[in-house]
Every structure is written in C-alpha cells, then in structure tokens.
C-alpha cells in the first residue's frame, strides 16, 4: 500500500514535471539575480536560444550548453565570437523611377496634378487622342504594385537573416522594434523607406533607446506613416506627437492633451525629401512650448529628451521588452526593477537584455514554455529546427505568415501586433498546422504570388485585352442582374483614363521589373536525421522528434498515438527494417507533432 502511494506520487511528479518542462524552481519567479552557473544545462540553453533567437538544431544548442551561462548570453547579446559580415546586403531590383517623388496620396490626386501641370510622376499628359492621362495612371499603379512586390523581397531577405545570422538576437530585436515603431507598406508605399527603417532597427536596435527613438522619428518611413509631413506651424497635426508618447515611449496616462498639442508644435516642419530627413524652417514653430512641466523653445529632439527623463518611459519600454522575450504577465514590482535597470544604464538596451537572460526569473517555471510564438518566429524557428539553410520559396513565406496574422512590413495598425494570446484564435490555430503541412508536403500546384496576379478583376481585364477587346468593354463589370451596388456603378467611369486598365497595366509593368523570388522547396531529410541518431524503433523516433521540435511535449496519450501512427505507416516499429521507405511516414508524424497545440509554445 505504502509503495503504491509512493508510485502514485512519483507519477504525479512526472506529470507536473512534463507540464512545466525543464525549468528552475518556482521560487526563481520574479528574481532578477543571475542563475547559479552550476545549473546551466542543455535545456536552459535551448530555452535561451528559443527566446533570444529563433531556436536551433540540437548541435547549435549544444554549442551554447557547453559554455558558461555568462558566455552563452554574451555570445547572443554582445555577439562575442560571432561574425555576420558574410551576410549579403539587400539586392535591389532597381524599380524606382525619378519623378515618382513626391508620390501623391491617391489616384485622384495624381490625375488632378496631371490636369493642373500637364504632367505627373515624371510622365507627360498625352499630346492628343484617347485617354490622355492613361500612361500616368499606369505609372501610379505600377509603383503601388512594384513597391508591394519589392517589399516582399525585403521581407524574404530579412527572414533569411533571421534564419542564418550567427547574431540572431539582432534580428529578433529588430522584429520587436518593427512591431513597436510600427509602420506599414500600405501607408508608406515605398519599400526603400521601409528598408531604411529596418536597417536602423538592425544597426541600433540593441544600442541606445533614446538614439533609436530619434533615428526612427527622423526616418522617412515613420514621418510618412504618421503624416508628420503635414504638421506645420500654426496648424499642427497631432498624430505623430500622440503616437510617440502613447505607443513609442510612455504609454497612456502620463501626459495630457495639452502636452500632445505642445509636442506637436515642436515637431512642426519635420518632413522628408525622398529618403532624406529635412526640417522646413518656415514651417517649424520656434515659439515657446510648455511640455511635461518644462518650458522652452523646444524642437522635436528636445521633446524626445524630455520624454526620456520621465520614469514612465523606462518602465514602459523595459516591461514591453520583457513581455516580448519572457512572459506576458509581470508584477508592478518587477516592472519597476526592470525600468530601473534601463534607467541606470542610460537607456542602453544590451545590459537590460543581459540582465533578463541571465536571471533566475527567466528560467523559472512561469517563464519556460509559456510564451506563444508569433507567426514569423514560428516559421523561422520551424525552418531552423529542420536544419534549413535558406527560407524556401515554397510555400511563400509572406503569404504563410500573413495568413497567420503577421506579415512583415504589414503591421495592422500603428500599435503593431498585440502578441501573446492574441496570436491564437481557433482559425489561426488550425492555420498554423496547415503551415507545417505546406512546408513538409509542398503544393504541386503552387502559384508564386509575385508572378501570378491573384486579383480576379485584374486577370479578367488582362484576358479580355489579350483577346483583342477594346479597353472600355474589357473593363466593364460583370454583374449581370439585380440591383448594382453603388461602388460598382462608380468604377465603370471611363474618361481621361481608365482605372481598371491602369490597375492591370501597372501589375504587368511591375512583374517585368521586380526580380522574382526563387521558388525552391524546403530541403527536408528526416530519414538522414533518424539514421544519424541511430534510432532503433518508433518510440525513440517520436521521442527524438518531440524533443527536437517542441519546447513543451504533448501528453503521454498523444505520444502513444504518435507512436502507434508511425508503427502503422511503417508497417513495423523497427527502424532498420523501414529505413529505405520511411521519409514520407516520418514527415507525416512530424506534421502531427507540429499540429499539436503545444507546438506554438516556446
């Protein structure tokens, strides 16, 4: 009887242990002092690499595990012993034409400009004949489409850095800042500005937060995204000032509406000229402002410096960084401590990260295996664990992560991505499993989205034009009967130009000039992994795959189902017998593993 009780307790202990993953003691929660170096092990190293990077293969984890904890963290945070100079710079397609800048805000604005000046976007109104503004409208749609396609190439370039850089934290931190200082292609409409901003995140993302904020505030991408260009003396636009305080630095509740108006005055005249930051002196309000209790003839940079003096700023930023890397819920006391670390280090980001990644709190059960990976992280870490050496073209990285709720350069709003549990809905959870399937079993009917124009209307126009139809007929709407919606009636106008034709022609021009994304599939070879590890039976294979791919393993019942599944698919549990035909069954079982709810955890 006594023995059975003990056995029962042991089983419960095992179950709890499996749930919590391999973490330190519960008492470590909220303790920022460094972990004892004697506790450093493979599981801690795996946890570190999954959070301070995008995970890795067992070999990569082993490299960190063999170091001391301080060395491992220094390698990730200080880049010690790493060299990323071999990573290629972005390869521009060369799609930007002189004359496109300043790019008007809308198609009507372009045609109004053309009417007024006789030219727009560097193209003259036709001397005579039909649809005299058509080439200008075509060019407008060309740039819209080309910038989208080239932005998707920038996203690929960045994702490849996340995958292959020996300094993964630089990229992961850049991803954090991209969500923090969010701006998107849909509004900015210029891949060059977005690339420029990304390079700021990559170069300065682990440096000084004050300098980073100034650099971002002066970046054409942000100036354009927040309409700073229209914030002028005597008629300030508050969008920019409000978001700087609410989202980028202090958070709500630490300033008044008056502070926003005064700050907006300080930012008047800030603008960009193509890719350069400029301050238009005549439009800048040089008068006295009272901002957060201080009075002076402040300019934008001085306003940022005053913001940096507020205790709320360090608390807010430190807590947001902590939530991104560690866990969603943190106590007010811990937030204060983290804010103090940032303040004491004069807003240098690296010391804060070092403190976090070495802390007992980071390795406590509350932190380990409790974070939901964002879609980009999920995709990159999947490829890393598979041992891929580049981001495959099939499936399309941007479509897949976009379907999961996070397409690079397309944060939904100025607040970026909400993160945490908001990454997951019933719909999105299923989509995540479908992503794994698209990687392991590439679709043989895959259509590259940068070549195949998916919009039904554009395709319909293209087909009719090729059949020799005139533009007016080719661009007519197809709705045959019943009441027509007002918006469809309006789109049929055809005067100086035809919008639907322009939309088709612009897509065609963009495809001609934007370089294609290579469409290779993931080079997966699970059989080789299994052979290399000398795994003898299906139980060992499932154990190996679970440990390699999951930070939180599934429960025992699921594990048994996985083994039974593999037995059935192989027709045996003996790997030696099945080694010549096991690739497909192994991929199936890996798909099942990646479909588990727990696969989302890091």
């Amino acid at each position, binding site marked *: 009887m006594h023995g059975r009780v003990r056995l029962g307790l042991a089983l419960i202990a095992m179950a709890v242990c499996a749930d919590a993953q391999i973490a330190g003691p519960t008492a470590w929660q909220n303790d920022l002092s460094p972990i004892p170096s004697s506790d450093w092990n493979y599981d801690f190293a795996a946890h570190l690499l999954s959070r301070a990077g995008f995970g890795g293969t067992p070999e990569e984890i082993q490299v960190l595990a063999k170091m001391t904890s301080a060395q491992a963290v220094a390698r990730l945070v200080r880049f010690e012993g790493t060299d990323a100079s071999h990573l290629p710079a972005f390869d521009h397609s060369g799609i930007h034409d002189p004359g496109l800048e300043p790019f008007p805000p809308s198609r009507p604005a372009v045609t109004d400009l053309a009417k007024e000046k006789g030219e727009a976007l560097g193209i003259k109104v036709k001397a005579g004949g039909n649809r005299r503004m058509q080439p200008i409208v075509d060019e407008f749609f060309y740039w819209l489409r080309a910038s989208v396609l080239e932005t998707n190439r920038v996203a690929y370039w960045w994702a490849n850095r996340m995958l292959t850089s020996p300094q993964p934290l630089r990229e992961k931190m850049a991803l954090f800042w991209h969500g923090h200082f969010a701006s998107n292609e849909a509004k900015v409409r210029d891949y060059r500005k977005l690339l420029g901003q990304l390079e700021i995140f990559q170069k300065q993302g682990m440096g000084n937060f004050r300098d980073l904020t100034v650099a971002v505030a002066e970046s054409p991408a942000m100036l354009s995204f927040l309409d700073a260009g229209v914030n002028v003396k005597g008629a300030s636009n508050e969008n920019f000032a409000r978001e700087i305080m609410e989202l980028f630095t202090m958070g709500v509740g630490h300033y008044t509406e008056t502070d*926003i108006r005064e700050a907006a005055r300080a930012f008047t005249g800030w603008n960009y000229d193509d890719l350069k930051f400029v301050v238009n002196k005549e439009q800048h309000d040089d008068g006295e402002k009272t901002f957060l209790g201080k009075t002076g003839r402040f300019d934008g940079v001085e306003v940022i410096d005053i913001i940096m003096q507020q205790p709320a700023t360090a608390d807010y930023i430190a807590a947001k960084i902590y939530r991104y890397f560690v866990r969603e819920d943190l106590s007010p006391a811990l937030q204060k401590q983290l804010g103090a670390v940032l303040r004491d280090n004069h807003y240098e980001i690296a010391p804060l990260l070092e403190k976090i990644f070495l802390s007992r709190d980071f390795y406590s059960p509350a932190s380990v295996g409790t974070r939901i990976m964002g879609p980009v992280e999920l995709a990159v870490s999947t490829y890393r664990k598979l041992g891929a050496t580049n981001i495959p073209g099939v499936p399309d990285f941007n479509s897949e992560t976009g379907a999961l709720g996070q397409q690079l350069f397309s944060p939904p709003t100025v607040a970026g991505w909400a993160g945490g549990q908001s990454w997951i809905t*019933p719909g999105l959870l299923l989509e995540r499993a479908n992503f794994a399937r698209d990687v392991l079993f590439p679709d043989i009917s895959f259509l590259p989205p940068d070549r195949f124009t998916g919009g039904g209307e554009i395709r319909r126009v293209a087909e009719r034009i090729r059949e020799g139809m005139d533009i007016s007929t080719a661009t007519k709407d197809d709705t045959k009967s*019943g009441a027509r919606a007002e918006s469809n009636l309006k789109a049929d106008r055809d005067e100086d130009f035809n919008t639907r034709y322009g939309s088709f022609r612009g897509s065609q021009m963009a495809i001609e000039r934007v370089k294609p994304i290579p469409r290779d599939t993931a080079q997966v070879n699970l059989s080789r992994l299994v052979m290399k590890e000398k795994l003898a039976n299906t139980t060992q294979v499932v154990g190996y795959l679970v440990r390699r791919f999951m930070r939180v393993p599934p429960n025992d019942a699921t594990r048994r189902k996985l083994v039974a599944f593999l037995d059935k698919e192989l027709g045996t549990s003996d790997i030696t017998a099945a080694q010549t035909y096991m690739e497909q069954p192994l991929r199936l079982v890996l798909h099942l593993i990646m479909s588990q709810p727990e696969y989302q955890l890091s």
Partner: protein
Amino acid sequence: MSRKRFSFSESSRRDLLRAGMYGVCVTAGASIPLPAFAQAAAQAKADGKILVVLELSGGNDGLNTLVPYGDDAYYKHRPNLGIPKNEVRRIDDHFGFSAGMVGFERLYKDGKLAIVHGCGYANPSFSHFTSMAYWHTAAPNSGEEYGWVGRLADTMAPAAPPNFLVNIGARQSLAVRSHRHVPVVFDDPNKFSQEKFYDEREVLDSVPDNGGVQNPTRRFLLDTARSAKDASVLVREAWAKYHSPVDYGITGLDLPKVVALIDAGMPTRLYYTSYRNNAFDTHVFQNDVHKRLLTYASDAVSAFLTDLDRIGRANDVVVMIFSEFGRRVPENVNLGTDHGTANLMFVAGKSVMGGQYGAIPSLTKLDAGDNLIHTTDFRRVYATMIDGWLGVRDTRTLLNGDFEPFAMFA
C-alpha cells in the same frame, strides 16, 4: 421620431420569464435560479434573435457621414471638407447622407434604420486604442478585462455551449473576450480547416485533454483547439453552401459570412465583425477616401439586410454599427480631420423602428478642444441591444451602471 421611455411593466416582467436570461434571473440585485422547464422555455423563446456588431475602426467622421446640411455652423467649420447641400442624400430638412450612401438612405426611408445622435462618454480619450478599448469593454476609464459582448454571452449562456459567439476577423477583438466562452474567431471560412491526409484523421480529430495542465498558456491553447474543432466544419460547410445573388459591392465586409452561418443554422446569437485596419482614420485628404469607405459600408449593410430577407431571417437579426470616436468638428489644414469625440451610432434591421434617437449635439457649443459634447452615453445603445433586442433585462450588472434603453423595437 421615437423616443419613448422604457418602463418596466408587469407584461415585461412576464417577458422576462419567457424570453429573458436562462440560468439566472436577476432582479434588484438578487439571484433567483429559474426552474429547469422555465430555462428550456426561455431558451426556446429567446433562440433566433441575433445581434451583429459592426465596428468601423479608425474613428469615422460622423459629420461627413450624416451631414447636417441645414446647419450653417457645419459649413463654417468645414469650408473645404463640408459636403455641399446639393450633393447630400437628404433624409429630412436638416440631415442628409454622404453621396455614395444609397443603401443607408433606402434603409432609412424604409424605416429599417435607427440613427442615434451624439453617442459618447465623459472624459473622452483621443487615442484609438484606449477609446476602442472603452467601447469594447463598455467601461470607459476603467481597467475592465472582458468585453461587453463576451460578458453578454456569459449572461445569456452561462453553460457556454459551443459556437454561441462568433468573431469574424484576423484577430480576436477585446469586445468578445469572455469569462466562459471561447469565441469562434476565423477570417477566411475556406481556410478555417485543418488540412489533413486520410491517415492522419484519427490523431488530428482528437483534442488532447487539458486535465492536470498547470501551464496557463498551454491550457489556453488546448481550449482554443477544442473550440476550433467544434466550429470549423460547421463554418466551412456553411460557407460552401452559401450562394447569394445579392450584390454586396466592393468589399461586403464580413457580412456575407454572417448570412452563411445564420442560414446554415449555427446556434450563434452574437456576431462581431469590423471594417478593418483603422480604415476610417482620415487625417489627410479625406474626402475621396472617406466617401468611398462609406459607400462600401453602406452597400454592404443594405445588401446584408436584403440577403437576410432572402433566407427568411430578416426579422431575427439586428446590426449595430459604431466607431471608437468621431472626428474633430473643424477640418484640419491637410483636408482631413483629427480625432474627436461624440459620434453617430446606427442600428439596422427589419425589426428596428427606424428614425432618429438621442439629442443632436450642438455645432456651436463645442468643448475646449473644438469637439462635440456627447448627448447620449453609448451604453444606452448597448442597453437597447441587450435588453430591447435580446431580452436580457439586467443591463445594470452587465454595463456596471444604469443605462436606459431606447424603445427601438416594437
């Protein structure tokens, strides 16, 4: 105009027992459990009435939506952005809709559209996120964690049956965050499915048990997996079966999906959808783009009602439309408008008593920031949906205060 006062009469007390909440009945703060047969009867009666919430995200400019063309002050505040008298779609001698809103004009004239003036709250926030959170939780200037639609679901169906609450969108809205329900959240019905090979079905069709799981994030994932399993097949089949001749216009928003689910007999009582991506945040050059957005929204909503008629459910569904704030009354120098305060709300449906509700806010007596002073607490409109439409009498607990419903339903 219809501004009848709501009174809690004997007959509505009986209605409460017939149509009200099942599970608990709350009067004067006391909880009295209903007998089982009453619960069943209440559910049977209440079944069928559906609320759809449509959010216009970004802060819709109400003044250029329903234009007060009869008020000179409007044109003084908006010398460039003001919509000329001859362009508006007049509904009376004071107001007219933006030019493209043919759909709303028709709904109004058919008596199926209620316009509620001056909706807002005290000490308004000018931040999209903060103000939207206030509207989502129905709790301005508080830290309420759960959404008002989520709490409503908790009250209507405390046992949290599957598929009671649906949120169509890329992400879950705070509005549907619930104690008990896991809302069904999906975007594209065609993709709301687990793609699986034949052999994989046995493993993938089972959701792991969450018993004994301590890790709260893991529990959340397991609960979500269960909700996905409960809903995905139904949603996909409903969408595959749905073929409508109704023209929803350029976007249709997510309203055709709602019709598909209703037509397929989903037990959903609460739907939440939005016009996404802060679209209505028109700081610069707003005229063309705003007109277009309104046209799309108006097309979609009127098509939605037509489509509901087609499937014979027009009497059972009401759609409530809101935005997190209006825009500032004077235009800005960039031919746009900045974040403001009070705004219109709309309620559309065949069961709605069309007309105008609430006092019209003054265009001459503005607050210090040149904003409208709200005349109607937006929670009164929520109360109208909760009580007047869905028959849940205890709006006080749900909304943390007394908000008098409008008599908007016959």
